[in-house]
């Protein structure tokens, strides 16, 4: 399926090119971006420094999600204790103040951490669109190397500039070791 003479049949998800090293992938991504390609993604076995910048991706929104989670956890934890021990279920122990805020700190702290941590994990998964059991790239047999030592760049068909033949030639000119069609 990887020979350039593959006849055009049906729509493609995109074209994926494999590169020998992380440096080669980084250089190729930069050149693809300057050539005007936007709908593309790089795939690596470990995070590669500078790669997301080359893809012009800056806002992860994760810190905001975690901050909101932490605030919700902290405020929620304190309000829960206040409502229970001061309003709804008053426990009068020797006439001590009902709103004994220092005693509410440990649980407030714990709920802050708990909800912030859950927000970090669930937020990361949701923003990444995971879990996603099926993805067109899994159709490419070579792509399994992405979790070992393969470095891939995929230009998606929905890119305005995508052309089945032109884009393949472009990817091959970037010194990719192999360019494959990605069935949808």
């Amino acid at each position: 399926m990887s020979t350039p003479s593959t006849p055009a049949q049906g729509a493609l998800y995109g074209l994926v090119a494999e590169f020998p090293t992380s440096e080669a992938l980084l250089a190729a991504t930069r050149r693809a971006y300057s050539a005007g390609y936007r709908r593309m993604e790089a795939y690596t076995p470990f995070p590669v420094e500078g790669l997301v910048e080359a893809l012009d991706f800056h806002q992860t929104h994760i810190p905001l999600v975690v901050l909101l989670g932490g605030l919700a956890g902290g405020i929620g934890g304190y309000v829960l204790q206040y409502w229970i021990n001061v309003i709804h279920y008053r426990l009068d122990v020797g006439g001590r103040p009902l709103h004994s805020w220092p005693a509410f700190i440990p649980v407030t702290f714990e709920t802050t951490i708990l909800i912030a941590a859950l927000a970090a994990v669930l937020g990361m998964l949701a923003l990444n669109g995971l879990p996603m059991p099926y993805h067109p790239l899994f159709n490419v047999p070579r792509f399994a190397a992405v979790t070992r030592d393969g470095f891939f760049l995929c230009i998606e068909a929905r890119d305005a500039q995508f052309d089945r033949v032109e884009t393949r030639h472009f990817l091959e000119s970037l010194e990719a070791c192999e360019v494959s069609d990605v069935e949808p």
Partner: protein
Amino acid sequence: MSEETTGSREPNAQTQSGQTQGSRTPVLQPGYTYASVTDKISAITLSRRTPLGWWIGFGFAFIWVMVLLFAIAYLFAVGVGIWGINIPVAWGFAITNFVWWIGIGHAGTLISAILLLMRQQWRTSINRFAEAMTIFAVACAAMFPVLHLGRPWYFYWLIPYPNTMDMWPQFRSPLIWDFFAVSTYGTVSLIFWYIGLIPDLATLRDRSPSRAGRAVYGILAMGWRGAARHWRRYEIAYLLLAGLATPLVVSVHSVVSLDFTVAQLPGWHSTIFPPYFVAGAIFSGFGMVLTIAIPVRRFYHLEDFVTMRHLRNMALVMLATGLIVDYGYAMETFMAWYSGREVEIYAILNRLLGPYSLVYWAVLGCNVLAIQVLWFRRARSNVPLLFVVALIVNVGMWLERYMIVVVSLHRDFLPSSWHMFYPTIWDWATFIGSLGLFTALLFLFLRLLPMISISEMRELVLETGGGGDNQEQRRGA
């Protein structure tokens, strides 16, 4: 943190320090590529043959799991009277074990969170199984407070939820704080561990020879495909999780210590308890990490990944935290004298010379004397000796928890209520059973999941200058 750490992850600084390191043991033996670290670590999990040693170890541990289940079933049927507890020693083995187990978990969180934030490169190959150890230790720990409730099936009354009895928990009680602290700690440790596992689960999914393996690892990997944007969100989330887990290293055992120190009992009512408990937790945790790491690296031939540098650094952390614990012992004794309170002084004298004095002197022998050998580099480089010291630390810290719980409780203010505590066979069965559960879970983990983070090791290959020619190697293969 130690003499043998490389601080920076910048590639330039790395190559420089790599050159200037000279005789230093590296964190990864040279010659590895992305492919070879991946293959070597995943092969342990993916090989169809289970080593005979694994079956023997797991089988032995599993017997003790059965003993534990039997002891718990009998406890549920008959009640806590089968244990040696009484009034005043109502806590006995259960809380001793709880405090000991939860302390052990702390080393895993320290390695995975604090050392990550401090960019200690040597954490990479030990963080995964240290985190696994944390989760299993928390599981063993969390069991005990529930078991020691007279009616354990009502433990969920600790959770604040609307109920038909219209009752709510008392949030001014350290026992409720403890419930929140331990459950938060367990949850955060578990998701931190799982997030770290996702890229490696994807590796196993792509490399598993069996259909079932591909399906199970595939479901667990959630469709991870190493996209650059995913990696960026993943790294930020992981770093923030490390930041969130860092205060947990300090807070969990502090809250556990409040269970004791908020009470007025002599021997418990002391301001030094929170830091003293935290140091003790990290101390015993590193003892347990060494106890596990030394046989595992030998059995699975992982000396290239878990190098002498790791063992020496862990020994140093153990020495440093051990000395803080020793300071705690000295201060407890000093403050009892300095307070001038008769009951406080008596509590210490009873600890030194009373019926349980052997426990106290054994604690000093294990946690003060034995660790002094770690001052010497030759001792830190001697693997069998390190293993023995780590075992001594495990025993010493358990005895310390026993001393705090039982020796303080058995003689309180009123001599007429004094009582000795003698553990029964059920106390021992539950304790040793929990050791069996911990070991059995660890064996399952070693067999079913990658015990070293593969994706982080690939990064380490890049940072230590390898990995460039791996593609050609794979093509040749």
